[in-house]
């Protein structure tokens, strides 16, 4: 399971960075989304995957006696997912506005801010 997740994370990172290096703005957004998902999977993976051991202490004992799944990475991922969802939706609107105003999808055309004025 770990090896599968590790490979998936790697593919997501690679695909995300490849898409970001393309010249189209839409592909840029797709790249950012893939990269964000890759990061979330990485945190999940690094929190160690423990199967079928929820972090709940049984009533008769006071402390954990066995291995248990760490709930912290999942809380972290939830936060990260919400944040990146907000950022991505902002990015989509921003790109749509930029496309309307600049009338181009090509990132190489975005050079008016570098000119002297």
């Amino acid at each position, binding site marked *: 399971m770990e090896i599968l997740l590790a490979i998936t994370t790697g593919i997501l990172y690679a695909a995300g960075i490849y898409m*970001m290096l393309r010249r189209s*703005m839409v592909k*840029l957004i797709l790249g*950012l989304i893939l*990269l*964000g998902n890759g*990061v979330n999977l*990485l*945190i999940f*993976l*690094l*929190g*160690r995957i423990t199967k079928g051991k929820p972090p709940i202490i049984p009533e008769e004992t006071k402390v954990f006696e066995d291995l248990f799944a*760490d709930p*912290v*990475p999942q809380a*972290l991922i939830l*936060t*990260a997912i919400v*944040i990146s969802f*907000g*950022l991505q939706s*902002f*990015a989509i609107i*921003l*790109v749509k*506005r*930029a496309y309307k*105003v*600049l009338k181009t999808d090509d*990132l190489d055309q*975005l050079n*008016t*801010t*570098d000119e*002297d*004025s």
Partner: protein
Amino acid sequence: MNEQIIILPLLLHLVFSISLMFFWTNIKAQKVLSITGSFLAMCASIWVFIYVWDNGIQTFQAGNWEAPFGITFVGDTLASILVLLTGITGFAVSIFAAVSVIKARLRFGFYSVFHFLLMGLNGAFLTGDMFNLYVWFEIIIISSFVLISLGGEKNQLEGAVKYFTLNFLASMIFLTGLGVLYGLTGTLNMADLSQKIPLVNNQALVDVTAFLFLVGFGIKSAVFPLYFWLPASYHTPPSAVSAIFSGLLTKVGVYALIRVFTLIFVNDSFIEIMLQSLAILTIFSGGIGAIIQKNIRKVFSYLIICHIGFMIGGLGLFTEVAMAGAIFYLIHDIVVKTNLFLVSGLIYRLKSTTSLDRLGGIYKSYPKLSLLMAIPLFSLVGIPPLSGFWPKLSLLLAGFNEGNYWYFGAVIFGSLLTLIAIAHVWAKAFWEDGKEIKKSKKFIEFNQLRKYQKMQYVAPIVFLAIVSLYIGFGAEHIQQVSLRIANEVFDKQAYFDAVFK
């Protein structure tokens, strides 16, 4: 009980940004409320600083969860002085924004987002938890995205796309580093991390993580070679927005670098060499960029990059003198850079352009205002009694004592380039005779403004100029603060004791 006051400025900004939303269309009420809010937050941050100065490091456990498990807020001297500077610059900028930002922008929640940005900055300075730092960073960047794209002008949207992409990427790299760090140590509390990192078996992976943090924060603080988003975007939004960005946003990156590389990843010679060489390259590229630009706001943008190099280099030398110099420079730079962008806003109002080719004759027509604007300009260069001089002295001394002549030379060369760039601005815009500038009919001249509006343009610049004059003439006080911070940063026991009570 009293330690809770350290988050008071943060809470004030939160309360005011939410209450500003109830006055969405009433711009006059928003202006009054925002200025009151930032004034109260400034008073609160002064209180916090004095409290921390008198009583040592204060900590606040959110939700009363004990230190390594819950989120800790730590108000040490470094955090509290930055909160104080956020309060001061936030107050000045909110007055300036009331008159310089056009109504169309104010009507779409400019002030509400502005206070969210200040809240995020305060949170980032005060937190003692790595993941919480990430969350504050996200609050900062989402607010800054809104501020930079609000208005939707052509070059603004273009700058926003570049700014967004690089900052999002930086956050993702930071989050990757965070994930690896949690996997290695199983904790996110900074004090706990600091104690657990030396015990990790796989030190090679620790180095990789350190490098991920260096790249992530490096993008945010515009370090060579990752600074291209800054000059492409900082001159596009209104000057009030650029002022708060240039004063505080890049400095958050520097703060995070100082925090992470003094508390968590220490004794890493590779990172130290990396920081020093990046600093030298940053100084060179920023300084050389500044002298060829023809737009005042772009000159200032490149100077931000140049001076980030000074601070990063001070951190990279990793001695107490160098750290004190870097902290002093940080304090001076926040005030002066904010003021410079306010000055660029005033110049635009006087002449309807910020292009050096078309500007001219400001000194002839506005001699008093020109003298006022000279204070931040020459503070930045560091003409001896003014504020830029003293930290450079510490940095030069540290570079010389450490035998790092490359950095020593780079600081001198960077100062020279700054002098050339500022002298160029002064000669072109202020001294040279002005040409007739074609103004659009809608443009409101400075002289046509009402008296209170003129006051709103000038008062924030006067206020920040007085602060920077105090930093220059009261340098021994600031040096005392910087030395205490440098002491705290290297002697971590006090920090640990405060966190794990």
